[in-house]
């Protein structure tokens, strides 16, 4: 049996997780009025915390959430059309640019030496790798937040 008074973590363990307590802690508790008092203090504190009324919002949360859901679902089709239109426009613009500058690009590639081409490709690949790494990291972080 422990002759010294219990430390605070043991007192709290006895108060809230008695089944996990070591045998000598339980034995000490059976004979020490001071430690018993300390356990009672924590139990009392716990009871007082439980008696605090639950906080409440000053409005009907479910009603407001459902209203927002309805509004956002109404907005969605318009937003979808806008996104599709934007994608189509971007496609057309890229096509136009490629058609206009294809000759210039071919000449530019032919005019550069192999070393400078390799240099440009290396830089482009490095930037691509950094971007992919960043995207993967943020994706992993988001998935971790909802890992259920």
């Amino acid at each position, binding site marked *: 049996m422990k002759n010294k008074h219990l430390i605070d973590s043991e007192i709290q363990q006895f108060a809230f997780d008695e089944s996990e307590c070591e045998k000598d802690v339980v034995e000490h508790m059976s004979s020490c009025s001071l430690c018993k008092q300390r356990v009672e203090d924590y139990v009392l*504190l716990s009871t007082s915390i439980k008696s605090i009324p639950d906080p409440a919002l000053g409005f009907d949360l479910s009603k407001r959430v459902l209203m927002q859901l309805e509004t956002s679902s109404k907005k969605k089709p318009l937003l979808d059309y806008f996104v599709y239109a934007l994608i189509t426009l971007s496609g057309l613009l890229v096509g136009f640019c490629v058609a206009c500058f294809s000759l210039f690009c071919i000449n530019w590639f032919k005019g550069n030496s192999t070393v400078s081409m390799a240099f440009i490709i290396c830089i482009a690949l490095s930037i691509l790798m950094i971007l992919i790494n960043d995207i993967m990291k943020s994706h992993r972080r988001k998935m971790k937040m909802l890992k*259920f």
Partner: protein
Amino acid sequence: MRQDQSTDKKLVKKVLEGNSNAFKTIVVNTQGLVVQIIYKMIKNQEDREDLAQEVFLKAYDKLGSFKFNSKLSTWIGTITYNTCLNFLEKKKILILNIDEDGLESWDLIDRKVLGNSNSQVDSHILRKEKHQIIASEIENLPPLYKTLISLYHNQELSYKEIGEITSLPEGTLKNYLYRARKQLKNNLLGKYKREDL
């Protein structure tokens, strides 16, 4: 747990089929936990109201990805906790600010209390505590401590469920809870002594 899970499955299925009343039921069933976490983590009332709505809108969007590995309420609790964490991170507010000196001083206070053998007086003071005093002392704790105390004592969640919500290992969680209760108890006793009660 199984009954909870089958109810959760039925509700989620209905929501995914477009039944908004089922989502209303989910909101009503889980708003107590959501509001409790938000109130403990966030101080500003307007931010609290915005975040409460944001949590359920996020839950609605992600409901299809819920895998039923935990209770639906725990999953929504996790979304709430992470939403609050992100909010505090943006505002550069620490959820836990522990310095070792602080911990030592808590030990000293506790030992002083024991050494003076004033336990009966302290216990009397504790018995006299009104819940407003305790509530205001809980408010003075760091956001993480407040949240853990409220999840354990008010919501009566198990260590496992609290661990799932906060992503804290059980040992760390228990350790934080010990420290939170000890700090709360010492703050209460300290204040009452100062007022010569």
